[in-house]
């Protein structure tokens, strides 16, 4: 199964009370999310992100087209037992306590009582709500409810995690935790579809993104490719004295390059987390959520079948053609201190271009064209990349190959 999620010309039109078509929420969407990738679905409010998810999950019926989730219909219990879903708001029963809520969802998965109990405790611990596990969800703040929502999405140790605006209402630590969690889960071979308009979150965790507007994909591709300024170079180093700076400026002047030299600022996120971490170290009392790090045991505990599956996934990951990174390096990237030196742009760029040159067909133009046939997202991404790097347009001679490959797919 190459794609965890695949939609074919998916269209959803909402009609008014008289049955007249009024709003085209999703318009001929061809979305492909590969197995074991973190895919971000971006777009402004009302661009059709949530509608797409609802159609994928069978909560809405498509007007036209169809969708496949994990190779089947998401309403089939055999399929949806492998899916975790966090809706845009945590729609939970207000009268159930946090523990009862998870117990209820665990029962829906027919988890044996022992496993259920272990997982509930592990998840409560993971989302930092163990201390308030016996309070009803109705008394929770939005962020705390969000954490329970996330825990319920993970109770079945899903292969595919669909998250709709996972970080809304969360404090920066919670946001950061979710981001770390997503990266770790991806490292364990899970597929994650993330729906958000909080661009910073998406940028930090997603392998690939699609930007939706008016129910159509406007652009799609690997995040790194889409965002790289190939005409700029950033150098990060330790503290330099004025002499050294002058020297560098001279060197650059010889190269006819303009430069800006500044001391980098700490990101507010990092600063905030440091402050709260300090308070937690001093064990100050709180009635809210407590931040924890790391993943629950059961999400990593592997059954035989699971490890076999993951072995296959690992293989797939290592064979991946483009600049996919493993979760560990990603985690470092997110957690990177400003003083740490990231790998240089040139390195990455070289690697990318080399690999694209050899393994992958060039590209298919997708931007601003209403092409009805499914388009390989990666190639679209490369197209964007090419536009950014100022290379030539689509190479027509590559087209038969693409068709061929699509047939194979």
């Amino acid at each position: 199964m190459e794609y965890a999620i695949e939609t074919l010309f998916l269209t959803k039109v909402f009609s008014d009370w008289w049955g007249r078509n009024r709003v085209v929420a999703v318009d001929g969407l061809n979305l492909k999310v590969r197995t074991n990738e973190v895919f971000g679905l971006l777009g402004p409010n009302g661009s059709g992100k949530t509608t797409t998810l609802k159609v994928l999950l069978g909560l809405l019926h498509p007007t036209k087209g169809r969708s496949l989730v994990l190779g089947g219909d998401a309403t089939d219990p055999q399929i949806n037992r492998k899916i975790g879903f966090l809706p845009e708001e945590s729609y939970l029963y207000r009268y159930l306590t946090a523990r009862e809520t998870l117990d209820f969802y665990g029962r829906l998965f027919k988890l044996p009582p022992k496993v259920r109990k272990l997982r509930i405790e592990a998840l409560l611990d993971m989302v930092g709500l163990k201390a308030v596990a016996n309070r009803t969800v109705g008394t929770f703040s939005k962020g705390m409810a969000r954490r329970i929502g996330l825990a319920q999405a993970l109770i079945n140790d899903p292969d595919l995690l669909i998250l709709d605006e996972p970080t809304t209402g969360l404090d920066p630590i919670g946001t950061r935790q979710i981001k770390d969690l997503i990266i770790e889960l991806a490292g364990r071979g899970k597929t994650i579809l993330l729906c958000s308009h909080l661009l910073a979150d998406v940028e930090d965790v997603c392998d690939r993104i699609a930007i939706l507007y008016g129910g159509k994909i406007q652009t799609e591709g690997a995040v790194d490719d889409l965002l790289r300024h190939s005409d700029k170079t950033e150098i990060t180093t330790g503290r330099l004295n004025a002499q050294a700076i002058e020297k560098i400026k001279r060197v650059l002047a010889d190269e006819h390059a303009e430069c800006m030299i500044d001391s980098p600022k700490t990101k507010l996120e990092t600063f905030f987390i440091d402050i709260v971490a300090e308070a937690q170290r001093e064990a100050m009392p709180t009635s809210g959520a407590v931040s924890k790090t790391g993943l629950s045991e059961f999400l990593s505990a592997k059954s035989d079948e699971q490890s076999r599956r993951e072995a296959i996934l690992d293989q797939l990951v290592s064979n991946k053609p483009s600049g996919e990174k493993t979760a560990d390096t990603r985690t470092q990237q997110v957690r990177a201190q400003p003083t740490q030196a990231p790998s240089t742009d040139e390195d990455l760029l070289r690697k990318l271009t080399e690999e694209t040159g050899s393994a992958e067909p060039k590209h298919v133009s997708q931007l601003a064209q209403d092409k009805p046939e499914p388009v390989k997202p990666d190639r679209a991404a490369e197209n964007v990349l090419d536009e950014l790097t100022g290379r030539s347009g689509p190479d027509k001679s590559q087209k038969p190959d693409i068709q061929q490959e699509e047939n194979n797919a």
Partner: protein
Amino acid sequence: MRSIWAVARNTIKQALRLKIAAVFIVLLLVLLPVMGLKMTGDGTLKGHLQAFVSYSLSLTALLLSLLTIFAATYTLTGDVKDKQVYTILTKPIRRYEFVMGKFLGIVIIDAGLLLLFSAIIYGITISLPTFKKADSKELAQVRNEFFTARTSLKPEKPDVSSDVDSAYNKLKDSGELPAGVDEHPVARRNYKKELAQRISQRKRAAAVGEELVWQFDNVRPEDPNQDLFVRFKYNVAVNPPDMEVYSRWFIGDDRQIQTTGIIETPIYTVERKDFVGTFHEIEIPADAVASDGYLMLAFQNVPLNNTVVFFPSEDGLELLYKADTFTANFSRAVLLIFIRLVFLAALALFAGSFLSFPVAILLCLAVFAMANMSGFINESFDSLGNNISRVYYYSFKPLIGLLPRFDQPGVSKYLVLARMFSWSQVAKLGTSTLLLKALPLAILSLIIFSYREIAKVIV
């Protein structure tokens, strides 16, 4: 099944946390004992018991019915409106399992609450005689006429159709029929109906000195040492000055006199003086019944009365004897309430499967109200049916036939009259209410909810 059970458990928690549930439960817990103390009926112990059982069971049935409607409607429409279904239906549970879980939850609550409140009512009822320090006469009366379940035998309605036809032809031949009656089939039918009523009433009337005889074939009291009861009411053509009528009754096996002349089973003669227009009971030892279950009742209009005496056709006369215990009868009455609650749960889930909360509630309450006066509705439409027969026959009648009939019988009717409410009656009512009415609704609700677009937005 396990996920159905998970939903059911959650539904129970949800319903019990509804304010209306709390209010109703507290109300019943307070009201039932108060009613036990304060209801006096006609002042006798029997009246007190009858009033209490009747009102407390009806109140319990009413409040639980309303609770069922509210809880069952809310549990489905609320989950859709507050979108908890988004997280539930994306789990490995089929939608029909979800609705079945809701149904199971509501039925369990109903069963639990009904069991609780009927136990309270039962407890109060059987301890009332002790509590009221009743004397032995009153105790004997309630033992015979309340704390029992008596089977009722009514005389078969005599077939008067041949009499009607001959009377009709006679009138026709002599030209005494009202104008136009013979030409119109509807008018003819109505006129014959009238004649039949007149003739059968004549058969239940005794002129001064005359005798009326009824024969029962299948009288089977459990125990020959118990008593039989002849319950009767009569009306008169001319009211006597003190509104009382003298009567002589012969009760026993009259065949012995006609055949052998040897009296083996006793024949009882009873002379009485009773008020006109109210019910009275004659108590007779059960040994009057012949071994093959035959019993004759004869009423003699004593010449002291100066009027024709007649027995109303519906409830003028019946023979009662003990067939079961009060406890068993009470349990079956409670079971009848439960059957109706199950129907209401199915109805409410059906409404909730495609309507919003207010509309669903309105629909359920309307059906509930109509079910509670189904007798009236059926009769009105039947009489209307004579005039708009075809339209009515194909449109209204099937719809009205779908209505359950909650007033037929009323929940406490059998208990108040200490009348046997048999298992076969329970089975019959259960089949018609559950299989023919609740089950189709339940299946419909499963289908509708399964194919419904849950997250649908109308713009």
